[in-house]
C-alpha cells in the first residue's frame, strides 16, 4: 500500500498546511469534479515582481484531490507566475510520487486545473490545461 497511499498523501490530507481562504486576493477560482463531488477553491496574492506572494486552497473531496492541492500550493509560493503556468500533469505526479489510473488522475489534477484557470484568467477550467 505504501506506493499508493504514501504517508505524505495521508499526512497532507489529514493535516494540510495551506487550507484556507485569502482575503484580499488577486486571483480566485473554484471548480468541482461532478463525478465524485471533489471541490477546490484557490485564492492567491501576487507580489509586484510577478511571483506568488501567498496562496491557499479550500474544498473537500478524496485524499488525493486534497493532498494534491496542499502540495501544489506549497510548491508555488514564491514562484514566478510564468513558472506556475508551465506546471502540468507530470509536475503533480512527481509531487505525489505515485502512479494513478485515469479516474484518480482527475482527482489529482483538479487543483492544478483550478489554479491555471485562475492564473490565466479564464472563464472556465478545461481539461486541456493539465495535459
Amino acid at each position, binding site marked *: 500500500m505504501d506506493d499508493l497511499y504514501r504517508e505524505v498523501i*495521508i499526512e497532507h490530507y489529514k493535516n494540510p498546511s495551506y487550507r484556507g481562504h485569502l482575503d484580499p486576493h488577486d486571483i480566485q477560482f473554484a471548480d468541482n469534479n461532478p463525478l*465524485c463531488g471533489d471541490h477546490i477553491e484557490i485564492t492567491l496574492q501576487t507580489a509586484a515582481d510577478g511571483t506568488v506572494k501567498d496562496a491557499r486552497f479550500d474544498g473537500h473531496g*478524496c485524499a488525493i484531490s486534497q493532498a494534491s492541492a496542499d502540495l501544489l500550493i506549497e510548491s508555488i509560493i514564491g514562484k514566478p507566475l510564468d513558472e506556475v503556468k508551465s506546471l502540468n500533469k507530470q509536475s503533480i505526479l512527481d509531487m505525489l510520487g505515485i502512479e494513478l489510473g485515469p479516474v484518480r488522475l482527475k482527482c489529482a489534477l483538479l487543483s492544478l486545473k483550478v489554479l491555471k484557470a485562475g492564473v490565466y484568467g479564464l472563464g472556465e477550467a478545461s481539461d486541456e490545461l493539465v495535459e
Partner: protein
Amino acid sequence: MSYNPHEIRKDFPILQRKTHDNVPLVYLDSTATSQKPLAVIEAMNEYYRRSNANIHRGVHTLAEEATAMYEEAREKIAGFINAPSSKQIIYTRNATESINLVAYTWARANLKTGDLVVLTEMEHHSNLVPWLMLQAERGIELEFISVTEDGLLDLDSYKTLLSRTLRHAQGGAPKLVAFTHMSNVLGTINPAAEIIRMAHEAGAITVVDAAQSVPHLKMDVQALNADFLAFSAHKMCGPTGVGALYGKAELLESMPPFLGGGDMIKEVKLRSFRPNTLPHKFEAGTPAIAEAVGFGAAVDYLTKVGMDNIAAHEHEITEYALERLEEIPGVKLFGPSADKKGGVAAFTFEGVHPHDVAQILDRDGIAIRAGHHCAQPLHEKFGIPATSRASFYLYNTKEEVDLLVNGLYKVRELFG
C-alpha cells in the same frame, strides 16, 4: 445437493486471476458488469471459428448456421423471461439502448407537450436522460415517485401523482410510468407488478428497467404484465455489446421503426420503404451476432444453475454482508434491509472518500465501485456525492465478504 459457490467459481476463468503483488481477485462489482463463464466465452469462440457469416439473407451453409444460432438465442432469451413469443425480443446494444428505443419510437409517436411521464427518484441515468431529452425536445412533463429514508419507493407519492394528474389542467392522466425493477445503488426490489397494475388502471404504459432484476431474479414478463422491459447481457454472465427490449406485441407492431437500414425493411424503393415484421423491424444493419449467441449461452448457463438457487444464495450472502458491514465503526449503509433488496451494499465511510476506499481495497485485490453509480439524483437526495458499493453474484462467497470487511478495517486504520 446444496449450492456451492466454490464449484461455480471454477466456471469463471477470470476468478482464478491474481492482481497486484499476486493477490487473488475478489470481484465485488457485478452490478456494474458480471464476469463470464467459460461456456459463454467458448460459445462465441465456436461461432467465430466455425459458423461466422452475415445472417438472414444468406443461402450458404455458414449463413444458415449463423442465422439459426442467432434466432435460437432469441428463443432462449424469450423463454428465460417467459415472453409469449421470441418475436417480442428485440436485440439492442444494452439496456440503455432498449430504453432509448422506446423513447425514440413509442414515446415520440404517442407523447405530446404537457403529457406526464412518471419516473422515480432512484433511476439510473439510463432511465432518466432519455426522458430529460424528450422533455427538452417535446415539453413532456416529468414527475418522480419519491424515495423514503430507508430506500423504498413511497407508493403514496405514486398514488398522489396518478390521481393528481387525473384532474390535471394540461393533459390528464399519466401516459407512461418508467421505473427500475431493482435499484443498482440501494438494491431495493420494487413491487413491479403493483406499480404496473396501478399504472394500467390510470391508463399508462409501463417501461421496466430490468437491468438489475433479470440477472438476479426469476423473471416472468407475463406475470408482471410489463409493457416494455429492458435488460443487458453483460450483467447476466453474457457478453458486452448486446441487450434486449421486450415489448407487448401490439405495441411493437404499432410503433414506428427506430434505426433505418438493412434487415429492418421488407422493401425499399428510392422514394419509400416498407418496414419488416417483428422482431426485424427494430434491428437495422448487421447485428451483434456472436454476442447474441453468447447471450443465449449465458441464459443456458443461468438456467442450469437455477435462478431460484442464485437468488437464494445472493440473499444469504447479502444478509451476511450487511450484518458484518454494520459492525464497522463509521460505515453507513444505504437502502433497505436484506429481505427487501438484492445483492448490493452501498455505504459511506466517515472521513474517507469512496474513491480512497475503493483504491485502498484494490491493493488487496478487492474490486468494489465508488462514485454515484450513474444515479446522481439519488445521491443528491441523500446529500452525498458518492458511495462505495460492493455487490454480489452467484460466484461470490462469505469468505470474500470477510476479506472486504478486513480491508475496510485497514482503511479505518490508515485514515484513523
